[in-house]
């Protein structure tokens, strides 16, 4: 049994009351236009969570002169029809749109989304119609509660919006069910080693509703990975934060499914944690190598989240897998300094002879002033990738790519790369 994904194309967002039947309905979808009742959504979210002091709902569309700061997470509206286990049943997906949570800084590592101008090319979210939740929490909320409140508000809003649209007819439907290949297919077996941050201190990920600090590494079926299995609870640098949207649309999983049976035999996925302590890293790498071995993989592709500390996890995984006879390709970003002349990674290993580089996150970029801004612009000076002088008097931002959400995503979601010059 597989997962059926019903896709609804959203090309624009409008605000207003929902016409017709359900007075409490928060959203509706007609002719690819998503109409959101902003008051009802805000009231609903605040009523459910006493940590939220205020939720203001806005929207942003591709090409607008709009800036969103400090973005905590991005979530694609999806609704799982009740009664089915993870990886099975019907998942309804609103394509072309996303819920964005933003507001005052949580942990220095939120980011910027520009809907137009030079910054727009570096974030996938400039191409989507966005529902922006500007969230303020009550005074005295601890950072970890602030993180949880924003995370849950984004997930809840996405769920409510998608659920309200379920009566529309989908534009497309697809079933994900990976059949085992017949023997003697002659294709290489490729596993995906899917690293998630599990460091604590606002650097957490949730897998099937559970904190990834426990229970990982684990093998997950591709159908489950495609079914909202992984949620971001991270305040890691914006450029290489795997937002919930990235987990929902993991391009490595998508590509591996696409080529299964023609270019390779997709052996499976091992979710592996990036913890903080050395012995935890060693234990996780060892267990992951064993699991990849159990999948009988010839090769493994390894993705990363964050930088510095996780560089060590990546190198341990590569070293361990290569030693076990599994060929590897890793994806990483670089922190080579503004001039590109510094050492890019915190750790290296000679076995890492196949690395895709998704960009130097220290590259500076000047973002011109926008007509409209969501969130507190002065907070950008305190973002990772920001500087004390970041915000110019005229509203321009002088930042590193590091401060732009998704700029150097290490699932390889974007086309940015870094090369020798």
């Amino acid at each position: 049994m597989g997962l059926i994904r019903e896709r609804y194309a959203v090309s624009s967002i409008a605000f207003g009351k929902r016409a017709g039947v359900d007075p409490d309905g928060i959203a509706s979808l007609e002719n690819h236009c998503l109409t959101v009742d902003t008051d009802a959504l805000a009231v609903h979210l605040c009523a459910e969570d006493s940590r939220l002091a205020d939720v203001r709902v806005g929207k942003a569309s591709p090409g607008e002169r709009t800036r969103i700061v400090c973005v905590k997470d991005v979530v694609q509206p999806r609704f799982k029809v009740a009664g089915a286990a993870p990886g099975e049943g019907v998942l309804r997906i609103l394509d072309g749109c996303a819920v964005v949570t933003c507001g005052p800084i949580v942990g220095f590592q939120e980011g910027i989304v520009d809907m137009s101008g030079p910054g727009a090319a570096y974030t996938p979210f400039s191409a989507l119609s966005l529902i922006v939740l500007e969230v303020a929490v009550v005074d005295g909320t601890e950072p970890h509660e602030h993180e949880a409140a924003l995370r849950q508000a984004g997930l809840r809003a996405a769920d409510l919006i998608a659920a309200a649209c379920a009566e529309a007819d989908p534009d497309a439907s697809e079933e994900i069910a990976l059949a085992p290949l017949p023997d003697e297919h002659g294709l290489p077996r490729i596993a995906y080693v899917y690293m998630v941050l599990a460091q604590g201190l606002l650097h957490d990920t949730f897998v099937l509703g559970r904190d990834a600090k426990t229970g990982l590494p684990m093998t997950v079926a591709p159908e489950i990975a495609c079914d909202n299995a992984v949620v971001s609870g991270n305040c890691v640098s914006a450029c290489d934060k795997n937002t919930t949207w990235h987990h929902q649309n993991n391009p490595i999983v998508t590509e591996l499914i696409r080529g299964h049976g023609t270019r390779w035999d997709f052996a499976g996925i091992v979710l592996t944690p990036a913890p903080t302590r050395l012995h935890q890293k060693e234990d996780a790498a060892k267990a992951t190598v064993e699991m990849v071995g159990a999948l009988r993989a010839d090769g493994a592709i390894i993705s990363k989240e964050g930088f510095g500390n996780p560089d060590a996890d990546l190198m341990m995984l590569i070293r361990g897998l290569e030693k076990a006879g599994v060929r590897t390709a890793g994806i990483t970003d670089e922190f080579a300094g503004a001039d590109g002349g510094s050492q890019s990674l915190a750790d290296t290993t000679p076995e890492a002879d196949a690395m895709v580089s998704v960009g130097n996150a220290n590259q500076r970029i000047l973002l011109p002033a926008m007509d409209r801004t969501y969130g507190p612009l002065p907070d950008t000076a305190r973002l990772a990738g920001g500087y004390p002088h970041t915000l110019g008097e005229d509203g321009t931002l002088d930042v590193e790519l590091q401060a732009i959400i998704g700029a150097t995503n290490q699932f390889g979601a974007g086309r940015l790369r870094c090369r020798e010059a």
Partner: protein
Amino acid sequence: MSVRAVHCLNQYFAGLGGEESADTPPQWLDGPKGPGNLFAAVAPDIEIVATIAVGDNYKADDPDAAAAEIAHLIEQHREALGGIDLVLAGPAFNAGRYGMRCAALCREAERRLGVPALTALYPDNPAVAIYRRDVTILRAADDVMGMRDAVAAMAAAALKRITGEALSPEDDGALPRGVRENVFAEQTGAVRALDMLLRKLAGADPATEYAMPCFDRVPPAPALADAAKATIALVTSGGIVPRGNPDRIESASASRYGA
């Protein structure tokens, strides 16, 4: 389009003689000499209006001072020439003194004259390690057999630089400057990674996008005679600060040191 270039050669390639003429100070010669004539053949748009010939031994112990002198010479002739657009030096292949001359002049000429300057060297030429960060160096063979290819690469790269286009090791045969630069690729990182893994599994060169750096081993300093009486400083870039963070070092993108 006509690009007006000044070309720097050593005494040998300028036809002034071999090692016996290696002390020759900078000589100003009209038009192209020796390899300069090859440029006209491969790139009619480039006109070499003058050649500077310098002996390999001339101030060889201070190539930057010699470069300043040569750049000054070009500056003096600049107006009479009706302006210049480009400085070419070499190719110098794997020649040590000549390589230093060419690379040092290119750096000085760009800074002082504000025009593109480039040379071509063998990757192991000692001048590459010293000047590659600041100078456009095209890849050349290790000896004069590679003259035509090196001149062609220099000419093509020069015309690109004149129009303000960036050069890359992949597309133009420029030697890496030891810096990393961002570009947008045709394919996403995910697609590139899977293609790379398939190449590696097939036994081909995976064509990594980030070659692992090689680290020098630094020998430890001699042991202290009496560690008990030593004042020891701990230097760290690990983000560790004294209690209370008295130097107010920022948690990210730190702009100051503490002590």
